[in-house]
């Protein structure tokens, strides 16, 4: 049987992709799920696995060609003897096998709510195929949202009965993406003949929603904080056409003061349908005007290489720029004598390791940071228009570098309720999850203050960018032994001390130099006089 391999749909707004690399040649045999080719879209690059075992008999799209979603890219012959490499196109693909329920309960698997502001998710990979057995809590599929990528476990034990949302499709939260049969009582249609008798005993189809997180629901029309004005008509169209607020925010407006007009949103919707581009390029209103300078166009050539940004890079770019555009960044630094903690860590590292806790400086610094935040609650706040939102909980963000080029800031929820051990564990856990793509959006949202430890790279001090909507971020420098002047019994002398710079970038809209300085001083005093007996 010949199976068409198609250009997958990579997201709502993506209607074409460029084939960047073939991993197989015509005539090669491929296994199911083996990488067949790589594609690049304006959102992400990804590798596409083979849908079936077989032989790659025809390649219809060559490297660097861009084709529309659903175009046939290649043909695979699944039966070995039929595997004659040929040019002629294959017959239309057969319908994907569905299954027949013959007993047990069918449980709907909805797209999980991934956080307050996340309205939709893209299924990036199914770990199970229809008919596969699945354990409770076993990973069923992976999703990608505009916040994080995560794996979603099965809420029940059973058999994957039906996949409703295919890979690379984007659906709204709560959309049913699959059905799991709890008793494994289902068969593929090929075996249908054998089970006709049983089929009559149709089971009660019961819909149970597996533990939707008790998140605040937010309708599409809900208008999050934005300084932009959207006309009633544009809001109506957005609602009717399911244009999310984030999308709306990214549409280039051509109206008065850059306002998004009916025409802009309708163009956006039609582009989205046609898959031209997620963000229509703003029509230049100053064509050839005397003041407009043409931007130098980058072309790959001698000495340059053009690398399209991946999704993570784009997100980081967006967040960083947004933060710079939002907050008035100022940075202040203080030097801290880390002798006490340094000695304690040195003395107790192996002991803690035995207990499974990796003892680093971070838990201590976090602990001191949390105390300082308690002392100066305005540091643990955000700005909403002309109001200050002071938070009485502390969700401490820890910036984690993700190889090769990612950066993410998950936060420790209610960090003020944790002791040093608890913090150490949480920090290690978040680090692990970040590296293993195990973060869920809730790990990312609702942070109240962040720490970034660039000291691990040997950096002494930096001026970090605030993680919005927070008002400050603490940068941790590396600890270096330095000669410092100490006063012993009224006499100055030089001692060697493990010294560390803390730098605080704060949003001058809310946090002035005095508060920033007081905060740093408080941290310094806490760290220098750390009561290690509490550990």
């Amino acid at each position, binding site marked *: 049987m010949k199976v068409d391999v198609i250009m997958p749909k990579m997201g709502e707004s993506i209607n074409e992709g460029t084939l960047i690399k073939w991993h197989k040649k015509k005539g090669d045999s491929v296994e199911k799920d083996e990488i067949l080719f790589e594609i690049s879209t304006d959102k992400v690059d990804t590798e596409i696995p083979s849908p079936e075992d077989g032989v790659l008999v025809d390649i219809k799209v060559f490297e660097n060609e861009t084709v529309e979603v659903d175009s046939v890219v290649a043909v695979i012959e699944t039966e070995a003897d039929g595997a004659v490499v040929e040019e002629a196109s294959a017959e239309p693909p057969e319908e994907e096998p569905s299954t027949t329920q013959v007993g047990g309960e069918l449980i709907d698997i909805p797209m999980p709510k991934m956080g307050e502001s996340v309205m939709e998710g893209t299924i990036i990979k199914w770990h199970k195929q229809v008919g596969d057995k699945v354990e409770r809590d076993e990973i069923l599929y992976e999703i990608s949202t505009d916040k994080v990528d995560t794996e979603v476990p099965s809420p029940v034990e059973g058999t994957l009965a039906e996949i409703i949302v295919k890979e690379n499709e984007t659906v709204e939260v709560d959309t049913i993406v699959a059905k799991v049969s709890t008793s494994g009582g289902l068969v593929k249609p090929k075996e249908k003949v054998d089970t006709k008798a049983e089929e009559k005993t149709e089971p009660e189809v019961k819909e149970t929603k597996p533990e939707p997180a008790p998140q605040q629901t937010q309708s599409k029309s809900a208008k999050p904080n934005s300084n932009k004005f959207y006309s009633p*008509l*544009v809001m*109506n169209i957005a609602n009717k056409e399911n244009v999310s607020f984030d999308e709306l925010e990214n549409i280039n407006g*051509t109206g008065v003061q850059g306002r998004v007009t009916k025409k802009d949103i309708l163009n956006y919707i039609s582009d989205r349908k046609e898959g031209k581009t997620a963000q229509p390029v703003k029509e230049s209103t*100053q*064509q050839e005007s*005397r003041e*407009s300078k043409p931007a130098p166009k980058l072309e790959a050539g001698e000495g340059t290489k053009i690398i399209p940004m991946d999704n993570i890079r784009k997100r980081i770019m967006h967040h960083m720029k947004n933060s710079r555009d939002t907050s008035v960044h100022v940075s202040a630094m203080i030097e801290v004598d880390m002798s006490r903690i340094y000695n304690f860590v040195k003395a107790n590292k192996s002991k803690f390791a035995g207990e499974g806790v990796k003892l680093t400086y971070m838990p201590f610094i976090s602990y001191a940071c949390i105390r300082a935040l308690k002392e100066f609650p305005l540091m643990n706040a955000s700005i909403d228009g002309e109001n200050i939102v002071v938070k009485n909980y502390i969700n401490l963000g820890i910036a984690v570098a993700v190889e090769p080029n990612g950066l993410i800031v998950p936060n420790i929820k209610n960090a003020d309720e944790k002791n040093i051990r608890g913090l150490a564990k949480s920090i290690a856990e978040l680090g692990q999850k970040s590296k293993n793509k195990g973060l869920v959006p809730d790990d990312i949202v609702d942070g109240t203050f962040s720490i970034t430890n660039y000291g691990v790279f040997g950096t002494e001090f930096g001026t970090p960018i605030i993680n919005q909507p927070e008002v400050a971020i603490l940068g941790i420098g590396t600890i270096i032994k330095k000669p410092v002047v100490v006063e012993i019994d009224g006499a100055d002398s030089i001692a060697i001390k493990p010294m560390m710079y803390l730098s605080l970038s704060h949003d001058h809209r809310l946090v002035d130099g005095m508060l920033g300085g007081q905060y740093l001083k408080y941290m310094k005093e806490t760290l220098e006089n750390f009561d290690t007996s509490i550990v």
Partner: protein
Amino acid sequence: MSKNYEIAVLGGGPGGYVAAIRAAQLGFKTVVIEKDNMGGICLNWGCIPTKSLLKNAEMYDNILNHSKDFGITVEGVSFDFTKIIRRSRNVSTKITRGVDYLIKKNKIERIKGFGKLKSKTEIEIFDDEGKSIDSITADNIILATGARSKTVPAIPVDRENIITSTEAMILKEQPKEMIIIGAGAIGVEFAYLYNVLGTKVTIIEMLDRLVPVEDKEVSDVLEKSFKKRGMEIYTGTTVDKAEVKDGKVHVTITKDGETKELIADKVLNAIGVTGNIEGIGLEELGIETFKNHIVADRRTYRTNVKNIFAIGDVIGPPWLAHVASAEGITCVEKIKGLETVNVDYSSIPGCTYCQPQIASIGMTEEKAIEEGYELKVGKFPFSASGKAAASGEREGFVKLLFDAKYGELLGAHIIGSEATELIAEVGLAKSMEATFESIIKTVHAHPTLSESIMEAAADAYDEAIHI
């Protein structure tokens, strides 16, 4: 050595002088070249003098026909036609002087004469005798030469018996009979004017109804009103010829295959306007024209020749002063390189100042249906408005069209008293992309005619209170 300017505007009408002022505001060294008074047709021979005449007509109409409805007895009412005309001219002169002042205030150079493009950057100026009197150069040239009455061979305008709107507003004496060919805004305004003053007015329109660009229901109300006033109306009628015999004009018309001859003192040719594209050097420079209009991009107002722009009536319909002004401003802002908003041609209000007044914006119902919209239509008659009843102006209605799918306000059509002032609210609503909720949730003062707009919006969604 001729003087060099950054922007030269050819034509001092509502397109040209507004463009020049905006250019001066943006710091351009600007010159405007106009052979006549500043203000163009609009201020000299159009909008302003006709509105002045129409105000006379309206007052006389009220005194003569409506004073007794209000319990006022007026006897021996009469008018002096020449004084009516003189008042109109005075108003016009006053307003054009105002423009002269604005030009001076903005330090714009004003050259009186007929400008002709000599090259892509040069304009030569001629006096009335066609003698070259000056020459300037400019980095950017904006053509705003406007339009004039269109004529056809069948109706040979002699400016004596067969006249255009220009002559119609400065006649020495009131004609006894007048045939008006063309029932667009100009035609029906003069029809109302002369009918009120006692001239026997006949209107001939080639299309099937009066004011054919307006919504059909508007045409119906107007026709009923005009007929009641005693006008004779021939729609769907073509004019085969018009001839002057012994000081009278004989007009041969055909309606439904039947031919008829009408006779009148004066025939007003109001069949439309045509762009002033002659003698300004377009052919020599290869500036593209189409059907007597300059071809210009409706966003940048560029012609096919670099740095030569064109705005207003000379680039074709809708031939409205306010459109010319908007185009002039936009054009200059784009030359400056400002981020500006394109003129929204779907939201241009159009006003006709006969009584009942007509004002509209956006699509007619016919057009909207043709475009495939599913409509929600709301209509509120002034007969249900308290203010209209109090004022004795119960004629007409407000009609609003909404797109059923997204709630967009697609069009508004108002006929009745003060329609031309009422349309402004709808214009703002439309340009701000308001939906019906926005209109009905805006508290409208009571009692006003504008409440009718709110009610019409509500009616579209079956929420009207007063009908």
